[in-house]
């Protein structure tokens, strides 16, 4: 395999003169999804789904790249002698597996992906290939994510036990926050949901792309640093980083919820001062990683980031050739 290399910017496809999710500025960037560690500003050309391009424009401004080339799911594009295509990866709005075909070999960079249902994005599509490049964020057998609907029901049950308490849900601003809102709406929660300012533009964008989020209101406070009456008994969504800051003082005695796959580990949840761990992940869990690899049935598995030791061990136990790419720079805090 001499046409794919790891260089200082990450995964490089030599005959296409392009990088996938480059970690440094490059000429041509193929981007799997809009999370900041994968989609960085400043490349000359960005090829991504229209949704991912829109997310990048929202976060970085319209001039995040000189040339923006939309590539829809199912469409193909030729770069040199290389065919490039996109397939949904089920991670967040617009997230894609990047399909690279060259000299009768098909390589798929799956980016971040999940297999559980998500009303805010298209479901992961199985595409058979020769080389499957996977993440391993939750690549340990201790991670088995529960059914998202059951998790939301559990949350609403607790909410009914403490009707006067505000529920403060920490959720990453892109993807997780919108998924939590959509799941709450699907579970029949119709009251206005209050959101932190950092979520506003991204929620607007999701709504423009047809994701129903219901009535959203800014979680403002007229009196800085003092609890706001309007927020009593309401559901408020904020980025996790805001949960223990001055911002959160506008809530009197909130129930602290954190929506993340990491919440499966009690000690982690406790360390963060979480009162209600909402186990909701945008990544494949252990069983789904293995099931996906089995379904894609590649000749070889490359693991980009996460708990690669365990996943590689499990692949080898199953007779699948696997190796680590050890790409440093992808951030797990987004989960």
């Amino acid at each position, binding site marked *: 395999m001499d046409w794919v290399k790891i260089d200082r910017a990450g995964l490089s496809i030599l005959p296409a003169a392009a990088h996938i999710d480059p970690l440094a500025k490059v000429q041509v960037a193929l981007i799997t999804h809009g999370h900041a560690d994968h989609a960085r500003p400043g490349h000359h050309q960005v090829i991504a789904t229209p949704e991912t391009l829109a997310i990048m424009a929202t976060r970085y401004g319209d001039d995040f790249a000189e040339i923006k080339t939309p590539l829809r799911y199912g469409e193909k594009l030729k770069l040199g002698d290389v065919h490039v295509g996109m397939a949904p990866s089920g991670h967040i709005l617009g997230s894609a597996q990047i399909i690279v075909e060259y000299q009768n070999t098909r390589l798929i960079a799956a980016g971040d992906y999940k297999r559980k249902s998500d009303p805010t994005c298209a479901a992961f599509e199985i595409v058979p290939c020769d080389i499957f490049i996977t993440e391993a964020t939750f690549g340990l057998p201790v991670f088995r994510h529960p059914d998202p609907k059951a998790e939301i029901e559990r949350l609403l049950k607790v909410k009914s036990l403490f009707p006067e308490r505000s529920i403060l849900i920490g959720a990453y601003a892109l993807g997780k926050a919108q998924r939590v809102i959509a799941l709450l709406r699907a579970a029949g929660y119709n009251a206005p949901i209050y959101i932190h300012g950092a979520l506003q533009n991204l929620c607007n964008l999701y709504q423009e792309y047809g994701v129903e989020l219901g009535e959203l209101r800014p979680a403002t406070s007229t009196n800085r640093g003092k609890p706001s009456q309007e927020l009593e008994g309401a559901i408020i969504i904020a980025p996790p980083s805001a949960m223990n800051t001055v911002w959160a*003082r506008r809530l009197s005695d909130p129930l602290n919820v954190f929506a993340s796959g990491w919440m499966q*580990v*009690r000690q982690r949840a406790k360390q963060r*001062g979480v009162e209600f761990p909402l186990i909701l992940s945008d990544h494949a869990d252990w069983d789904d990683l293995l099931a996906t690899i089995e379904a894609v049935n590649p000749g070889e598995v490359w693991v980009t980031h996460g708990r690669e030791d365990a996943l590689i*061990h499990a692949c080898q136990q199953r007779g699948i050739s696997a190796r680590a790419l050890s790409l440093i720079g992808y951030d797990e805090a987004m989960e």
Partner: protein
Amino acid sequence: MRRFSELLEALIFSPRRTVKLAHLSGWLREAPHPDRGWGLAGLTGDLSFSHVKAGVVRELASEVSSPELFALSYDFVGDLAETVALLWPASPAHDGTEAAEDLRLSAVIASLADTPRAGIKPLLAGYMDRANVAERWALLKLATGGMRVGVSGRMARTALAHAFDRDIAEIEEIWPLISPPYDDLFDWLEGRTKRPEAEGRAVFRPMMLAHPIDEGMQEGFVPDDWQIEWKWDGARIQLVSAEDGVRLFSRTGDDVSASFPELVTEMKWKGVLDGELLAGTPEEVGSFNDLQQRLNRKRVTSRMQKDFPVFIRAYDILFLGDKDLRNLPLSQRRTWLETEVTRIETDQKDAPKLDLSACLTVDNFASLQVIKEQADPRIEGVMLKKADSPYIAGRPKGHWFKLKRNPKHADLVILYAQRGHGKRSSFYSDYTLGAWRDGEDGPELVPVCKAYSGFSDTELRQLDKFVRAHTINRFGPVREVEHKIVVEVAFDQLHNSKRHKSGIAMRFPRFHAIRWDKPAEEADNVAYLKRFIPDKDV
């Protein structure tokens, strides 16, 4: 097991005591017996299966995944019970939505207790296959001991009192008399039988505690209404001698007899005494540091007994034989105490070493203030006990008071800050403070104490703002701040300490005033602070 596991989940994630209590008392009322009794024992740490070893759990986990995957998982999660609970494959026959019949808490406890060591592994594996994640976690925690869900014995008993609308003092009183699954406790709580009694056993009687003195007490203070004693810097202790032996209990009712074999030798005298455990001899009282050489030791050599002798300075009598004296006024109990302490000494040459706490006489309140400041450094202050006070478990109002020596003060610099818990979780409220000393490269600040109280809400806001704006380094949750803020810290005592980098340890440091006006260079140095160390310590 299902409900118990749900209770544990609720407890572990509730940061607040009131919420924990509500969860606990609800469960105590509603869970069937004897499940609730066994669960209660598990929570209070009164349950142990010494033949269930953590090694068995590790072996099981390696077998169901692989040694490599288990090792990687354990390394990531950090807690054995949790790792295995999560890693255990969900059985297709049992998806965990239905509670398994034979997973009843009491049945599981009985099987764990009855199964010999060799049978534990298949027994646990069988349970794990039929349980969900939370049940597996609860099962492993119960079997291997150590719940760590933030429930103290006191909290569990308070929850019992709430659940059955009883006085906590009554629950405390009978607690030492009962054992899991507490049939007699629940029979009494639910009105089926009378209260359990000691009947000749050497059991702990909950202690009476004092309040800090009230400013208003100076007005109309009549010395004759009070029994006044020194407040010694030792450990509160209860000596119980009954038909089945002699025992020594700590303030919280823990049996500490094993640490002090010389105090629990056979006694002809029977009854219950309350007093202070002190290092040294009645003639020459040792320091708290000396006493610490003897505290919390499971085994004590005769060498240690010789090097660090201990004795009991008695100040109250609760029982004489089976006779309960606690309802008598203190003045009458004192008469009994004096007679009995003399009797113990004269009747038996090898009796545990005891003496009487002296009563002080003062003319007025002002002279109290004077004598406490002039007293021996081993003395923490004075105790004022109403002469007519009965002995009431807990901290009843209006009977006993403590008047501590004036605190000592030091000007220290804030070095590090950490966020608090619960309502303070958004504030940097826990501070590490330092004093100057001469380092290799000139003067340097070295940590001398941690303090997290004594400031007002407004001051906390100001401090929090300062920390956020002046952070120079982060170590996980800890922020190092610019060395700018001087705090006048009040503390009760200062000792030499080998464990601290500064070589000194402060007792009960708290904020007295924030000296916004004072530059950090003018804060105190370690050499100055060492002057507060009592002479005998040096």
